């Protein structure tokens, strides 16, 4: 099944949602929605992987056409990935019905 749109979720430390949007907009994203969230991680796992989890998070949700997805995910990995201060992770989900993006007609992917 081919999907025309994908939704990208990017979870970053608080304060980095602007950096996420800047990266995404470079590759054609038009807007996003930021949700405040709280991260949970096993302290042992933190020690094992040598990272510290800041509990306050922001979850940025960006709806994009499928052809833009790969470039945006790569940009997010480089700009706000786990090796940066944003300590972000990003993933995408296929979206099979979209309304309100572009035209007003419901689009079936």
């Amino acid at each position, binding site marked *: 099944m081919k999907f025309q*749109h994908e*939704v990208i979720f990017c979870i970053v430390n608080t304060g980095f*949602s*602007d950096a996420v*949007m800047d990266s995404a907009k470079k590759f054609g994203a038009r*807007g*996003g*929605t*930021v*949700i*405040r969230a709280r991260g949970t991680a096993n302290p042992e796992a933190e020690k094992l992987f040598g990272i510290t989890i800041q509990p306050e998070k922001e979850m*940025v*949700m960006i*709806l994009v056409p499928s052809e833009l997805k790969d470039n945006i995910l790569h940009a997010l990995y480089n700009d706000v990935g786990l090796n940066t201060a944003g300590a972000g992770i990003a993933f995408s*989900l*296929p*979206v*099979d*019905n*979209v*309304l*309100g*993006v572009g035209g*007003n*007609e*419901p689009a079936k992917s």
Partner: protein
Amino acid sequence: MEDNEKKAPATTEVKSKVARATGKTAREPKKAELEPGKSQRAPRKRAEPKPPKVDLMITVVNREKAEFYSDYLQEYEVNMQFIVQAHGTASEEILNYLGMTATDKAVIFGIIRQDKVKEAFSGLSDKFTTIKRGAGISFTVPLTSAIGVAIYRFMINQTQGGRL
């Protein structure tokens, strides 16, 4: 006793001769045929309808309209919803251009049956375009698994009925 033992191979021979002549192998009698009083055919199972598939529906609207859209989605059997407060990422320039000031948003997560999506989107499309400050976006993500029959029934709005 001796007679019976002698007759047995003869019967087998006859059977095999018949099979050779007709080209068919002799069929072993089924257990049901041997037991008198029992019907020979096993009752055919009636095909049960498949449980409906569901999608996760995500709707982003202005915060002041969240309650309205939540109630509206209820009409399309979106029983399980939760509303999360969020904010948009539109820049100042775009906001000024559109004549908007606030970026406060609400995200409504809900579970909708796939056969209701078209109908719901048609209704939402009308609301997005006709209501003042009621514009928004909505999309669905297919769910692949769910666990718990009671919850699943609640999600598909099936309170009574057959097995799942």
